């Protein structure tokens, strides 16, 4: 027995040594882990070197992170009501969520894209799309607030969005679901040949970023999945991946996977722009909301637009071509030089790369393989530049570094694969945890990538963190990509479901980030410009309270003469002019959220008192040592009472 034991122990020892020798990765795990720790460690008081903006998916919002630390700095409300700031609850921001369907307080936010000049990130704005009730939003990168939302008519499942051209001439929004255009009552099974896929080109005013829907191209009824602008030599073109070229209207899981190849649609938008400028296109009645938030009035307004110019692709010869691409391509990515268009057939093992030069030559030489609804189909072998034989399964999205390499995520095999653009050789692969969707390299979708970090955004979390019941936040992983091989540095949880992200060097935004709103520039209709302007006005059963705040009191803080049945508007102006001193406001029984008012800003909260009594309100943001004292009372009398309207502070 003893002998056996000894020999077993010996064997165990030997095998341990063996494992140690054979697997240097594992044995040096400790040392590796500590160097990875140093790479992501940002000492207290130090700052990250990159901003990362991760979409929140079904949270409807955009989250701001630092890289490499993975620390979350802010959640920017865009399409969803957000009690933290009062967005979508305050009177000023409710109009931002107006649509042709009425007030829609939620959306599925997908693809952030930072504005560019000459194909390089310029950090003025970030654009995002609402997938469910088609909308495009523009978020300021100086205030980090949503400034504008435009609804997209004739669209449904606004997924191949919101990608910008290389001088931010347009933000482009393509429909994932084709629909009848205009919408009408018709049998679903008459989809084929009747439904249309709208690709929308929304211009961005260079000075203030204002959006205008310039034209919509009514393409055949395919699903337009993702899109990218041409850049450098291919500037002027836009590329859209498609699936369901079968035009199935049911059981797409099977029916939309019948064709061996779908298409990447190449659209020469410059040509169409000129066509429309010369009076081309058809004016079509429409109904869509255009919501703008003004930084000086601190107020959003919603306008319904009634017309859109539509373009039939067969009317503009030479502006539309279809590039056959295998297996329901999802990602459609263009390399920094603008030469290569990468189609990731999501049901395939390989990645297809098309060449812009070859495409132009094929167009010139009329190397067509038939047509679809009047749009020429280019011959596959005439446009294809190469295939990446990755060995992975389920390629989705590709980003680029500044050394001529591409990085593609593989959903089914849970990995990121690095490959050379030009030789198509696979250089490295690293696992992700688990089932990666998008990836992001700061500037990795521009002419000038910053090749330091790669963030992989995963769909499945499982065992990566302490369990939190059946529902868990998605996980992301940071890789160092500065060397020949990728190095996994860090895991961090994300919020909602990130579908893509955008990132940029910190120094691009840091100096321009707004600290306060200037009180003397406040043009809000209900501003209280100095405390002696604080007052209460009655207009029928509407009561307007002009209230100011400073550490740590409200002016006024005692209000009498309010009655049951009144609609009380608290217009709060924050008189602080110091960085990071917001004041909040909330009152018992209010049917909206609190509001958080930034220094120099005015926000309005509505309260409809339902019960007689004396009801307190207070500041929700711990503002000073005397924050707990920042409170007040409203006396609510019966509807037929004769209590005079009065207000005071310190009397």
């Amino acid at each position, binding site marked *: 027995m003893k002998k056996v034991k000894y020999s077993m122990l010996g064997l165990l020892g030997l095998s341990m040594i063996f494992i140690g020798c054979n697997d240097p990765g594992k044995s040096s795990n400790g040392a590796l882990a500590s160097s990875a720790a140093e790479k992501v460690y940002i000492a207290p008081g130090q700052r990250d070197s990159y901003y990362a903006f991760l979409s929140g998916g079904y949270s409807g919002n955009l989250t701001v992170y630092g890289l490499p630390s993975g620390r979350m700095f802010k959640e920017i409300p865009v399409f969803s009501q957000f009690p933290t700031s009062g967005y979508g609850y305050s009177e000023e921001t409710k109009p931002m969520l107006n649509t042709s369907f009425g007030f829609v307080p939620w959306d599925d936010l997908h693809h952030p894209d930072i504005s560019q000049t000459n194909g390089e990130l310029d950090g003025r704005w970030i654009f995002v799309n609402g997938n469910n009730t088609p909308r495009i939003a523009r978020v300021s990168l100086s205030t980090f607030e949503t400034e504008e939302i435009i609804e997209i008519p004739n669209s449904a499942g606004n997924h191949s969005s919101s990608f910008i051209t290389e001088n931010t001439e347009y933000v482009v929004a393509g429909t994932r679901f084709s629909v009848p255009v205009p919408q009408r009552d018709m049998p679903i099974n008459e989809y084929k040949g009747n439904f249309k896929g709208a690709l929308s080109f929304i211009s961005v005013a260079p000075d203030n970023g204002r959006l205008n829907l310039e034209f919509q191209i009514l393409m055949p009824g395919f699903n337009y999945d993702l899109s990218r602008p041409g850049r450098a030599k291919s500037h002027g073109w836009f590329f859209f991946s498609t699936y369901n070229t079968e035009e199935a209207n049911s059981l797409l899981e099977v029916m939309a996977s019948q064709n061996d190849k779908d298409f990447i649609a190449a659209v020469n938008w410059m040509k169409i722009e000129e066509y429309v400028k010369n009076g081309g296109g058809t004016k079509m009645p429409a109904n869509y909301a255009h919501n703008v938030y003004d930084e000086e009035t601190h107020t959003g307004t919603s306008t319904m637009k009634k017309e859109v110019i539509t373009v039939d692709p067969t009317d503009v010869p030479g502006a539309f071509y279809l590039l056959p691409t295998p297996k329901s391509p999802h990602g459609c990515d263009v390399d920094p030089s603008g030469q290569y268009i990468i189609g990731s057939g999501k049901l395939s093992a390989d990645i297809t790369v098309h060449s812009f030069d070859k495409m132009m030559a094929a167009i010139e030489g009329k190397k067509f393989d038939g047509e679809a609804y009047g749009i020429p189909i280019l011959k596959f072998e005439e446009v294809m530049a190469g295939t990446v034989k990755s060995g992975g399964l389920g390629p989705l999205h590709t980003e680029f570094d500044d050394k001529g390499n591409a990085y593609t995520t593989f959903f089914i095999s849970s990995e990121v694969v690095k490959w050379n653009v030009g030789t198509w050789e696979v250089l490295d692969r690293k696992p992700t945890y688990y089932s990666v969707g998008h990836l992001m390299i700061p500037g990795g979708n521009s002419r000038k990538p910053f090749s330091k970090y790669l963030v992989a955004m995963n769909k499945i979390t499982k065992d990566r963190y302490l369990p939190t019941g059946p529902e868990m936040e998605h996980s992301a992983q940071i890789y160092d990509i500065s060397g020949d091989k990728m190095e996994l540095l860090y895991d961090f949880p994300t919020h909602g479901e990130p579908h893509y992200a955008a990132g940029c060097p910190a120094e691009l935004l840091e100096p321009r980030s707004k600290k*306060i709103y200037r*009180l*003397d520039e406040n043009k809000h209709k209900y501003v209280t*410009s*100095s*405390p*002696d302007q604080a007052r209460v006005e009655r207009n029928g059963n509407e009561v307007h309270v002009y209230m*100011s705040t*400073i*550490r*740590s*009191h409200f*002016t006024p803080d005692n209000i009498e003469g309010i009655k049951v049945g009144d609609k009380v508007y608290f217009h709060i102006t924050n*008189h*602080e*002019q*110091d960085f990071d*001193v917001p004041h909040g406001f909330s009152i018992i029984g209010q049917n909206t959220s609190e509001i958080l008012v930034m220094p120099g800003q005015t926000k309005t909260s509505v309260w409809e008192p339902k019960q007689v009594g004396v009801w307190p309100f207070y500041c929700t943001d711990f503002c*000073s*040592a*005397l924050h707990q004292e920042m409170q007040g009372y409203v006396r609510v009398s019966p509807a037929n009472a004769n209590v005079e309207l009065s207000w005071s502070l*310190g009397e």
Partner: protein
Amino acid sequence: MKITSKLIALLCAILLFSCGGKEEKKDGFSLERSKVEEAPAQTSVASDEVPASQRITLDEKGVGQIKEITLDPEINTAMAAEGEAIFKTNCTACHKLDKRFIGPSPKGILERRSPEWIMNMILDPQLMTEQDRCAKDLLVEFNGAAMANQNLTLEQTRAILEYFRTL
């Protein structure tokens, strides 16, 4: 058992007492203050006899970017008017002319503080309350209500100072 019944009796007594007390003092309550007040007054005297708000510190220039300024004998009325407007929008939430409010009234401040001290206090109140003795004592005297930095420019601050000369 005995202990609990005693406790209950005591609790009842307290309850009775407190209920009775409340009814008697409908207009609020007042503590017997006279005895209590003396002790803290003495300890504060130990640090300084005169409250910070009444202290005269004309030789102190405070801490901050303003090192030395000279005032014209004539008050610049245009500048003072500008200062009054800025004071009204940015300062009156806490400073009233006719009374002590969240902070002191600016009336007569130039008899107690140097122009440099006043401007430094407006330009960077946090630095002042950290490093200037008088500013620190004022913060304590005024209930810990820290003066807000209103991000005023040098010119705006100077204009407010000119306005203070007219008060």
